[in-house]
């Protein structure tokens, strides 16, 4: 069982992910922005973090930079889920230390496959 944190400000998308992942055995926690996500991560470092980029208070890039700046959290892979799908925008994600990028809209199969890739079975 792996520990996963999702950061997403859009209520509808959070609900969609929750629904899609209700059948998994992973421990999944949700936050509506980067700041809340960081709190969850610090409290219990997960195996992987999925995060949106555009969020109030702390966006995905700031969250990633914070994690990479902390020795105890720097190893956690981060996957960006973003509507920004242009090449330079995707490159921005990797520049902030992304382990992967999921473009919105995404299929459930894609979401599950990405999760499977990073989650320890």
């Amino acid at each position, binding site marked *: 069982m792996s520990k996963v944190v999702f950061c997403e*400000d*859009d209520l*509808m*998308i959070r*609900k*969609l992910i929750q*629904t*899609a992942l209700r059948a998994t055995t992973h421990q999944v926690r949700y936050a509506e922005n980067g700041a809340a996500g960081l709190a969850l991560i610090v409290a219990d470092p997960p195996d992987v973090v999925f995060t949106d*980029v*555009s*969020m*109030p*208070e702390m*966006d995905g890039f700031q969250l990633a930079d914070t994690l990479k700046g902390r020795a105890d959290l720097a190893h956690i892979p981060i996957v960006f889920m973003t*509507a*920004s*799908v*242009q090449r330079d925008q995707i490159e921005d994600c990797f520049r902030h230390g992304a382990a992967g990028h999921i*473009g*919105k*809209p*995404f*299929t*459930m199969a894609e979401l599950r496959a990405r999760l499977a890739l990073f989650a320890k079975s």
Partner: protein
Amino acid sequence: MRKLPRSLRFYVAASTFYAATIFLAVQYIYAFQLADSGILVARRDSGDVLASIQVVSFIVWIGISLIAAAVMHRLANALAGAKSAEEQREQELGSIFGLSASLAGPLELDDIGKRFLEAVRYSVRSDVTVALIVHDDVLEAFRVVGADGPHASDFADQVYSAASLPAPIRTRVIDHRRSLVIPDTTASSEQWAKIAADLPRLAGARSFAALPLTSRDRLVGVLFLRGDQPGALVADRLQGAMTMGQYVAGSIHSALSVSEAEARADREAIVNRVSQRARASLDPDEILRGTVQELAGALGVSRAVVALGESEDDLRVAYQWTETDVPTVQSGTRQIPIARLAVRLGRTIVVSDTREDPRFADPDVRADLIRRDVRASVATPIRIGGYLAGALAFAQVGRPRDWTAEEVRLIESVARELRVAIEAARLYQARQRESERLLALHRASAVLAAQTQPRVIIDEILKNAVELLGSGSASLYRWDPEAGVLRRELNWRVRDEQVSVTLRPGESTAGVAFERMEPVVVNDYPAWEHATEVARAGGLRATIAVPLVRSGSPLGALVVRSYDPDARFTDEDGRLLTLFGDQVVAALTAADAFEQQRRAMEELERLNRAKSDFVSIVSHEFRTPLTGIQGFSEMMRDEPLTVDEMKEYAGDINKDAQRLNRMINEMLDLDKMESGRMRLHREPVELNHLIEEVADRVRPNSPLHPIALKLDPELGSVSADRDRITQVFTNLLSNAVKYSPTGGEIVVTSRLEGDVAHVLVRDRGMGIPGDALESIFERYGRIESRATRYIQGTGLGLPIVRQIMTMHGGQVWAESTVGEGSLFHVTLPLAEVLAVTPGGLGGQRPPNA
């Protein structure tokens, strides 16, 4: 030679002695021989006879001797007389030969006169005064060369013009070249009265003669003889003087010819130098300078001036030379009345004494001449091909002066040479100027072609104009229609304190050129009626301005200035500057076109960027609801779900679809409004009520943002499209919520301001940077930053608000402090209410409106 005594007593005594001696000798020899021969007898009676014979013969002998003595005396006398006449002739001849010998070789006229008079004096009685007058070509009159005798001083330095000589002398002596001899003036009193009237110094003469001196058919002079005794001068006694006169006339002729030739040679030398200088140089200043100095030196005047100009009033001093201590004249010719007179009359004017001359009787002129002590002057006009070019003027300070014909001739000759020089130089300079002008225009055109920066082009044009016109500075004034002034925009070598920054039309040269739309040339700026104090105080002397005209309307003016006191611009300069002005207009036009194009390009680029940003934003924003729609529908398709789950997910899909729809509608709305295809459905709208409704709708979605309303109860209805105004306040309030993510009170205030309803929406959000306060109302103008990136929306809210307000005749604007919040203002005109539906809404109009 021993002189023979001519006394009659001497001859009588001599002949008596001779007769007695001979008689006694004969008696002795006779008596001795008689005695010897015995004839002698002692007879007394024969002795008596003999003695009486001897007495008779003695008496006869004495008589013959006396006759002989008388004859001898007569003979001796005659011989002596003949001898003395010959001697006198010899003497006269000796004088003539001596004179002619002494006249051999070149001699000064004065020397000739002196020797001649000495010789003549010797041949006449000692009381006679002689005077030689010769005809002086230079003076065109007879002048006394010398005089000798008791009354010589009466003749000293006299000059007689041919006309002033008495008629008898004039006709007989001068015209007919015959001598006039008046042995006794009282005897010929009538004739003498005429002569004495014209020659009063001769009135006391008792005897007078005037002898013509001619040489090779030319009358070279006249010999005057004056005697104090009647009969002192008679024709016979004047033969010697006349003969000497013939000898001396030739010498006088030669001497006169030599002096004339010398004078002519001097004159020609000066004229030649002038013409050589004129040929060697093309600088009129240099020619004038050299000529004037040379001529002034040759004439020994106090001042020499060359004035140039095309009319009496246009004359200006081009060059002047003055002796040390003699003040110069001003550059105008007011102080050279004679030059003006010469120009006016078109001929040489000679003034021997300005104080006596009636032509300078004008009190001001005379006072000025007296003040400057100008006593004599001469001026001649310089004409080129029938046109006046100027005048040459000379002045003598401190003393009157008789200008000789020779001097006048010299001045006129030099003026003729100068004319050629001036014209040649003028033509050369005109040509030079023409090519310089073409070159300058060419340079300006080259810059125009190579440059797109109007500043660089116009700087170059101004520089070229200044260099070409040899002036001080240049400026470009452009018309500012809003301020109604000409504004100085570009300058070349301008000192700010000398030149106005703005000018009204009609003010200074630029203003006048702009107003009249024609070139303006001013050469005495301080005296000009449209002059400005700034320029006057700045020392501006001469200036040209040309209007800058494009398609018949003036854009401004181009000004060139000179601070040189002698500067003088011509109409030709004005025409030249007009060409530069045209270049400037071309440059401005090109620059304007270039600038317009650049702006259009920038606008296009900006729009293009905004559009692609918009596409990116829209696609980004659309992806969020699409994610929900795609995800939930995928699950519904692929997963075994309960009916409740199905319904729930279908509801979620529907919400996202609506969200998508809203976004699309916003875009379409704005597009419609911008293209003018949206119609307003106006109706009376209670603004306060509408604001309350919108606030109520927003509140549930923004728990962190208390919305306070401060509404003016006086605010009544406006005529407006209810839905659109609702959209305005919804957008403003939801923006206030969106952009204050940490919460904070939102205040909506409404108030009546005259005939305008003013609504203010204040938040305590992140604020808007000053430079974005306007662009936020433009389509695709949402400020993209990390702080706002997460905010969902198409960025069309405020553009829609502005469009709606504009359609209602109202306004919307924002003010903000970054980090403290923003304040949005909305105004709606109440007048619009009455204008649109006057009948239905008249009563609802606020009383204080």
